[in-house]
């Protein structure tokens, strides 16, 4: 453990101790309010380009296990916590958080007033920042942070997607499996723009044979597999920078039933003519209330996004708003009035987060079944 400094581009800085790797890293700082799920957060490719501050002070308590990962490796640029647990206590733990970060060369910083940081970000919005164990002069670091590249307008999808095409067969571990059913299976192509594995596990469990293709795949390449449905995944960064995927979606609309999550939802939104904009500090946590406007029921959702589709830019005749965030009334879900197509901004695959929105996978199944 060595001294480390976290400095934001606007001059605010914190002194703490490093854990995991040493060095110097850059990224946009966001905060996540989940009490559990740091392992899923670390391995969620959507965090590419970002440093995550956990609002809960004790992190690392239950260690790391191989089954709860959301991708092949952690993606966060840096990890900010109040206090790293001195010990790991969980029957499934295989290594400590610190060992894990070290292994993947991720820099963590602890011992800072994370609440102060969060309040600051809440007020000024997400900020570019640097964490360093090499340079400890805050002033110099602030300058470095200012100079670091922004994620606005940058395509980060290419950096996180798996370039290979593969079939995904992993299922949920038995002790946590639920919602499983013995029904007719359909083929689905999942477009990987940084896909979380739990989406794939869920698709698998809900009666789909899953083939994963990279986000760079074209519509004709995808249709070649003759899928019964196409799934559009989550992913990092600015959705307006992923023009090629918007085009692919445009080409697929009306040809095959589609379901999109997070970045996938933003792709669909743009393909339908909508615009996206960046939220002040985004939604990152497991406690966001979303109302399903069809049933008027509330689901507590897992969220991780900085950008949203502007609800006012969607063509009214074609698109129906299906879900709304009750905290800030932003768009959380839409469906096409004519074509078999719907999407949500949040994460029905949870992981981390509540399982309230699992029904969306069933909806997708029903849609595919109807159109098959």
């Amino acid at each position: 453990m060595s001294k480390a400094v976290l400095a934001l581009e606007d001059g605010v800085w914190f002194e703490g101790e490093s854990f995991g790797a040493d060095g110097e890293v850059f990224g946009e700082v966001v905060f996540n309010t989940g009490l559990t799920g740091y392992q899923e957060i670390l391995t969620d490719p959507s965090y590419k380009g970002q440093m995550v501050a956990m609002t809960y002070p004790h992190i690392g308590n239950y260690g790391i296990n191989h089954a709860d990962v959301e991708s092949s490796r952690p993606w966060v640029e840096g990890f900010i916590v109040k206090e790293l647990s001195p010990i790991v206590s969980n029957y499934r733990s295989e290594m400590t958080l610190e060992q894990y970060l070290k292994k993947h060369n991720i820099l963590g910083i602890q011992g800072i007033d994370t609440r102060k940081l969060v309040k600051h970000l809440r007020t000024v919005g997400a900020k570019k920042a640097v964490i360093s164990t090499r340079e400890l002069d805050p002033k110099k670091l602030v300058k470095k942070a200012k100079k670091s590249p922004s994620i606005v307008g940058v395509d980060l999808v290419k950096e996180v997607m798996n370039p290979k095409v593969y079939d995904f067969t992993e299922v949920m571990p038995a002790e946590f499996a639920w919602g499983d059913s013995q029904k007719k299976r359909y083929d689905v192509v999942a477009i990987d723009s940084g896909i979380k594995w739990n989406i794939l596990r869920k698709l698998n469990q809900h009666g789909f044979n899953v083939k994963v293709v990279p986000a760079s795949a074209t519509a004709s390449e995808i249709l070649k597999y003759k899928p019964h449905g196409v799934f559009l995944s989550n992913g990092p960064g600015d959705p307006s920078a992923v023009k090629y995927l918007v085009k692919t979606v445009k080409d697929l609309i009306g040809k095959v039933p589609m379901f999109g999550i997070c970045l996938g939802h933003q792709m669909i939104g743009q393909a339908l003519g909508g615009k996206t904009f960046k939220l002040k500090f985004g939604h990152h946590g497991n406690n966001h209330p979303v109302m399903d406007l069809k049933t008027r029921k509330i689901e507590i959702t897992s969220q991780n996004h900085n950008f949203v589709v502007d609800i006012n830019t969607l063509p009214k005749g074609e698109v129906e708003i299906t879900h709304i965030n009750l905290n800030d009334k932003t768009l959380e879900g839409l469906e096409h009035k004519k074509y078999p197509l719907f999407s949500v901004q949040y994460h029905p695959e949870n992981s981390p987060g509540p399982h309230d929105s699992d029904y969306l996978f069933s909806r997708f199944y029903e849609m595919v079944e109807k159109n098959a």
Partner: protein
Amino acid sequence: MPKRTDIKKILIIGSGPIIIGQACEFDYSGAQAVKALKEEGYKVVLINSNPATIMTDPELADATYIEPLTVEFLEKVIVKEKPDAVLPTMGGQTGLNLAVEAYEQGVFTRHNVEMIGAKYEAIKKAENREEFKRAMQKVGLDLPKSNFAYSVEEAEKVAEKIGYPVIVRASFTLGGSGSGICNNPEELRATARMGLDYSMVHEILIEESILGWKEFELEVMRDHKDNFVVICSIENLDPMGVHTGDSITVAPAQTLTDREYQRMRDAARKVMSEIGIETGGSNVQFAVDPKTGRMVIIEMNPRVSRSSALASKATGFPIAKFAAKLAVGLTLDEIPNDITKHTPASFEPTIDYCVVKIPRFAFEKFEGVDDRLTTQMKSVGEAMSIGRTFKEALQKGLRSLETKRFGLGGDGKDKVLDQALETREEYLQFIKTVPHRKEFREKIMAYAKTPREDRIFYLKYAYLAGYTTEEIYRHTSVDPWFLAQLKQIIDMEQELLQAKGNTQTQETMMRKAKEYGFSDRQLAFYWGLREGDVRKKRKKLGIKPVYKLVDTCAAEFKAYTPYFYSTYEEEDEANPSKRKKVMILGGGPNRIGQGIEFDYCCVHAVLALKKMGYETIMVNSNPETVSTDYDTSDKLFFEPLTLEDVLNIYENEKPLGVILQLGGQTPLNLAKALEANGVRILGTSVKAIDRAEDRDKFKRLLHKIQLSQPANGIATSLEEACEVAKKIGYPVVVRPSYVLGGRAMEIAYDESSLKKYMKKAVEASGKHPVLIDKFLEDATEMDVDLISDGKTAVVGAVMEHIEEAGIHSGDSASVIPPFSVARETVEEIIFKTKQIAKELQVVGLMNVQYAIQKGQVYCLEVNPRASRTVPFVSKTIGVPLAKLAAQLMVGKTLKDLKFTEEISPKHVAVKESVFPFVKFPGVDIILSPEMKSTGEVMGIDKDFGKAFYKSQDAAMSRIPKKGTVFISVKDSDKPKIPEIARAFHRLGFKVVSTKGTAQVLRDYRVPVQEILKITEGSPNIADWVRNKKMDLIINTPSGKGPMLDEGKIRSLAVSFNIPCITTVSAARAAVRGLQAVRDDELDVKSIHDYHGVKMLKG
């Protein structure tokens, strides 16, 4: 869906007296529910027998009935008020049970009242073991494996199937006898045989043992649209085997991965929907096998609870308030989150701090009690603390307990087995030697393994004794995560100890130590300094706490509710205003002698001062209370009530002064030290407090106003004590100086019992002297509550105790107005009390206790603060005394407040005490100078007899109207008993007695049946009790201990729920009660009707 319009008037059932397992939390939830429903435009009717509650204040409900919580009285209230619905989920188990009983007797159907919040069927499903099990299995949830057995052979088969170890529980026994854990068939055979014997239905349950598993709890809410949210997750530090009320609990859960946590959340959701809780809050308890992760459901409570109050305070999410709104049809998305204002209640709170709840026990008050913690709850209160880390919260919690501890040891109060470690040297010596003392080490581990109230300290001692985390875990099953946190505190302590004399090291370590929750007092101990020096040093270094907000959302949104906790970090959010402000110190955790009454007074002060335009700042550490509802004061600091913590807030907020006479003895004890540190104390001066509390000064005070005091003396040794006692004459009352609640107070009738006492006394009071007073035999005790502005004084009420002097005033029944004492004596008492107030220049409240012996008035003690009886008096006379007192403390006069004359109520009110004996099987129930009651009820009616009868009914020791009364009294009571026995006979009772008393009754020609004593063969008195062949027991103790017949009879009476009267005066009152209700049926009347609109002022 909007709220229901088909119901207009709702009846809320309160929880009655404070008992173990049911404390102020139900006043908090009940008061919230009343407010919430009124806010929605409903008429609210309330029934609760406990006068010391905010919910029974006339300002809250539209009609408040302080009447017994029985089906009979509930129905009377329903007949009178005709409510459309009843909300039974706010009054704890008492409220729920009453509603179930009333439903089963057809009361609700008869009067067309709908149960809202929880339906009868749902309650039954949740509460009935078998039905619950079936429901859980239906939705695929796992429970501990179990089955019934009716023979030893069957038990063996069941156990074999389940796998050892198993727990045997005998069905339908009292006090949990006939249960035990069995590790092998041999143990099982023995326990099963015993269990079958004990069980009245010859049935035992064999259950899979989950002792040592991790215990979790989820606080959840659900609305009628099936919207479901988890408010808080809680993980217990003490693993399965200790009642959750007796466990140290931590929020949020610490050792579950997201997958494990979400699995639990899913299970809780299934439980809610299967049981059918459609509108409200519940808690679901889980156990998790630490080795395999297997999760089983333990139980669920379909109502708000102690843990929902805790969860509300831990997260800032007001569960009871919202539960009440859901009960009338609102949905979660229709209710705004009070704290953020802009987001709805349909979200899950997230927190960015750690909360620790620590139970408070009172074993020292019950001789011979089994102090091991089990699945039967034994704690009487709890403290909660908040810190940014568990370490900080734990140490803050330990110093909130009012057990004179200042953190996780190292505070001069450590006591390892019999070894006290009062000095730094003793402590160091212990640390150095203990790893080498084999037997001692093992004893320490044995203590760490068997949970008692100080288990947390034994976990520490085990570390000091050289055990490793793995070893401690293996023995105690306390999760290694918690142990590792303790270890961090201990390691830091070792470093701190090393830094003695090294100013530079001390200074570099200071911040980190404070972050770990160490108090200045502990640092002073480690460094051989005084607390004040550490404080000075700390302030010089600029190390001050910051105050952070509890906001339900981990700072994601702006919060509007000023609810704070201290921590040592960078940013302070307290943002002190420039307004005129007053700080009010609360009473800390409930314990015997200090309970809800003081919280009631503090809340009243807040309300009154707020109305006057002051900013009110509340400081308290008890999560059960109304005072710690963030809705009560302008600013709430959830902090320990120690000098350090209070000063920190004071210096940050700079109020114009502090009120500490309303929070009981806890804040009063800080008076001197606070003043010495420049704090302005509002109300009665510290000097006056000292004059009342210091023995010599007090003596001079009484002398000055020519008031007698029982002859007394002071002793510091056994010899001295004997000498003093001899001089003033036996019997004597002995007690350590400076105690509350009659702690370790006893009556010694002769030298040998005095000697016995003195040996124990040294233990209770350390090196402090022992006070010896002449005991006034057969004296009547009186209690006076007075209010004064420094010049004028008005007596709130003079109360006459039913039990004679010598029984702690908190345990006696007391009556307004006095019923047997001469009018002149009462007037003399009023006069003298006012004189004392004048002499002390009391500003605020004062309580004085007197004993009247043969017409002579003796002053027993003066308490220059609000007393336990303030709410009772206020509700009897219709004047909110505590509210007035607060106004006096900021400069108003009684004339300003238009309260200048005593009030003579036209009704009679009786306060009766409620005892926890049923939780302590085998403990003798006799009353003594040591306070033992946990709560109180009030009976109010036209005359003494009726009011007394109601008070007994409310105290759950209903006097039967007919049947058999067993009478057996000590010799000195024998002359008084024939008259009472004859009265019972005339009332139609059959009188039975054992030899001695029977002889006396026969002599006086009272018809009596003589029965055998326990030692005289059978069927004897014990058999009569066991077979419930008697309906009432009158048994006065001879003072010879619980081992004799009489002690056994009394404790059996408790087990079999037979009312037992232990004083002649109470027996006499019972006769009057029975005479009063013989021909005339009891009626109910609301507090509003008793007082008209008068009480609404103030």
